[in-house]
C-alpha cells in the first residue's frame, strides 16, 4: 500500500509531464456496498492512460466517477477527491454541466442519437450548451469530424441520418461528438469492444493521434490493446469482499515488463482473465 502511494510522488510521475486529473483515495459505493476503492494516481496530460483488469474490478465504475455520471444513480456515493486542473469536481466551484464540457465520454456501444443527422449528432454537445451560431457550429463539426477521421467520408452527406453509418463509423461519430466541445479529457469506456477488428484498428490509430489534442483515459478489458496504445496503466482487481481496488499504477512499459506487484504480473501474463 505504502509503496503505491509513494510512487505517485516520486520524480517519475512529474517526469511524465503536467497533470490533467488527480485522484486521491477515490472510492465509489452503491447503497453502502463498495464497488471500487483506493484509487490514487495522477493522469498526465496529452497521454493515454488505460484502466485495466478483469471484469468486476471496478474500472468502469471508476471512469464514470470522473464525469460525475454516478449523480444519476440513486444510492451512489463517491468519496475521496478528484481534481481537474486543481479543482475538485465534486466539491469545488465547478458545475456539473461545465465539468462535462471539459471531460467528455465515449461509450462501449456506439450510440449516435437515432433521430439526428450526422451533422446534428456532431454538434449536439454545442447545442446543449446554448451555442446557436451557425459559423461556430460548422467549424466545430468540421474540426471534430476531421479529428475523428470521418470528414472525408461524410462531408458530402452531413444531413443523412446517423444510423446509416457502419458500426465503426458510428463510434467515430460518437468520438467526434465528444470532441466537438474541445474537452481537455476524453473518457472512453471499452470503445472498441463492440466493433470488428478493422474498425478497432482504425480507432486505436485515432486514439494515438488524438492524445496531442486531449488527454485520454480508456477502460479496456483487452490487455493487448492497452499495451499497444497506452502510455500509462492502472491495474485494478476485485478483492475478497467483491470490491475493486487499485493494485498498481505506472507507465505501461513498467506494468507489462516489470510490475511491482505479483498480481499485476499474473494478469499481464494471462494467468487469469
Amino acid at each position, binding site marked *: 500500500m505504502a509503496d503505491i502511494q509513494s510512487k505517485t510522488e516520486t520524480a517519475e510521475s512529474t517526469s511524465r509531464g503536467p497533470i490533467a486529473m488527480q485522484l486521491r483515495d477515490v472510492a465509489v459505493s452503491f447503497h453502502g456496498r463498495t464497488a471500487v476503492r483506493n484509487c490514487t494516481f495522477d493522469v498526465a496530460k496529452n497521454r493515454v492512460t488505460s484502466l485495466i483488469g478483469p471484469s468486476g474490478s471496478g474500472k468502469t465504475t471508476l471512469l464514470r466517477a470522473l464525469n460525475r455520471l454516478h449523480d444519476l444513480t440513486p444510492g451512489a456515493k463517491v468519496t475521496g477527491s478528484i481534481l481537474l486542473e486543481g479543482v475538485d469536481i465534486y466539491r469545488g466551484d465547478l458545475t456539473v454541466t461545465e465539468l462535462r464540457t471539459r471531460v467528455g465520454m465515449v461509450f462501449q456501444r456506439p450510440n449516435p442519437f437515432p433521430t439526428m443527422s450526422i451533422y446534428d449528432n456532431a454538434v449536439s454537445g454545442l447545442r446543449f450548451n*446554448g451555442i446557436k451560431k451557425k459559423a461556430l457550429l460548422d467549424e466545430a463539426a468540421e474540426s471534430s469530424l476531421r479529428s475523428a477521421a470521418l470528414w472525408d467520408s461524410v462531408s458530402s452527406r452531413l444531413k443523412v441520418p446517423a444510423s446509416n453509418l457502419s458500426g465503426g463509423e458510428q463510434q467515430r461519430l460518437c468520438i467526434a461528438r465528444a470532441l466537438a466541445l474541445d474537452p481537455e479529457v476524453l473518457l472512453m469506456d471499452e470503445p472498441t469492444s463492440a466493433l470488428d477488428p478493422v474498425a478497432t484498428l482504425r480507432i486505436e490509430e485515432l486514439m494515438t493521434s488524438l492524445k496531442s*489534442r486531449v488527454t485520454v483515459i480508456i477502460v479496456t478489458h483487452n490487455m493487448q490493446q492497452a499495451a499497444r496504445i497506452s502510455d500509462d496503466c492502472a491495474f485494478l482487481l476485485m478483492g475478497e469482499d467483491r470490491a475493486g481496488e487499485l493494485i498498481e499504477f505506472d507507465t505501461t512499459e513498467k506494468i507489462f515488463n516489470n510490475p511491482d506487484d505479483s498480481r499485476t504480473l499474473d494478469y499481464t501474463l494471462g494467468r487469469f482473465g
Partner: protein
Amino acid sequence: MSDIVELEDSMESGHEMRDEIRRISHRTHARRVAVSRTMVALCSVALLIAAVPLVFLLWELIKQGAPQLNKAFFTTLPSTPTLIAPNATGGVSNAIVGTIALTIYASILAIPLGVLVGVYLAETESKMATSLRIIAQTMAGAPSILMGLFAFSFVVHDLNIGFSAIAGSFALAVLMLPVIVISSEIAIRNVPNSLREAGLALGAKPHKVSMRIVLPTALSGIVTGTLLAISRAVGETAPVLLVIGGGFINAWQPFNPVSALPLAIYQGARSQWPSQRAQVWGIALVLVAFVFVLSLTARIWATRKQQVRN
C-alpha cells in the same frame, strides 16, 4: 491515412474555438438550468393534477355514499318515492342480484372460449392467428355500446329471447372475450421455452406439454387477465342498458329481465326525486369498491407471481 494527416492541420485552431464555446456555455448556463428546473416542476405539477381527480372522486364517493349504506339498502327491493313519502327509495337488492347473475353467466360464456383462443394464438403461427390477434386488440378497445347493439340485434331480436339476463350476459361476454384472449396469450407466451423443451425432451406429446406444463404455469397470468376483464364488465352500463330490461325484482333467471348496479346508478341519476339521486352515491360506492378490489387483487397477484418467478 490521409485523414490522420489532416488531423495535424486542424490542431492549430484549437484554443480560440474552445474559448468561445466555454464562454457561451458559461453565459447561457443559468438560463438553461432555470428552464430545466421549471419544466421539471411543471411535469411534477402535471402528475399532481393527474392524481387529484381520483382523490376527489373517492372522497366524494365516501362522503355521500357511506350514509346511504344500511341493511335495508342491501336487502330490500327498490320502491318509487311518492309525494307523501319522498324518501321511500327502498334498496337495491335487485341490482345486486342482477349484477352477480350477469357476471356469472358472462364468465361462463367468455372465460373458457377466451382462454382457448389465447392458447391458440400463443401456439399457432399463421395468417389466421395474426388476423385474429389484430381483431382481438381492436375489439378490446371497441365502444361497449356496440356490444349492446349486437346483443339487441342477435339475442333480443333474432333469437327472439327479448330483454333478459342472457342478452346482457351475451353483451358482457363479447366485451370480456378479447381482453381474456389477449391476456391469456401473453401469459402463455411468457412461460419460458425451456419448460416446453424439457417436457418434449421427456417424450411428452406437444398437446400434453401444453395442458400439463404450460397452462398451469401460465395460470396466474390468465387469472389476472380474467379478473381485470370481470372488473371491467361489472362496471359497464352501456352494453346492459339496451338489453336487460331493468327488472324490479330479485331476478336471476337467464330469460327474464334483470337489473344491474351500473344501470341502477344511471337510472337513479336521471330521476326527478332527490332521494333517488342521493342514493345513487351509495350504489356507486359499492360498485367502485367491488371494482377496485378486483383490480387491486389482479395487480397484487400479478406482481407477486412475477416476484416468485424471479
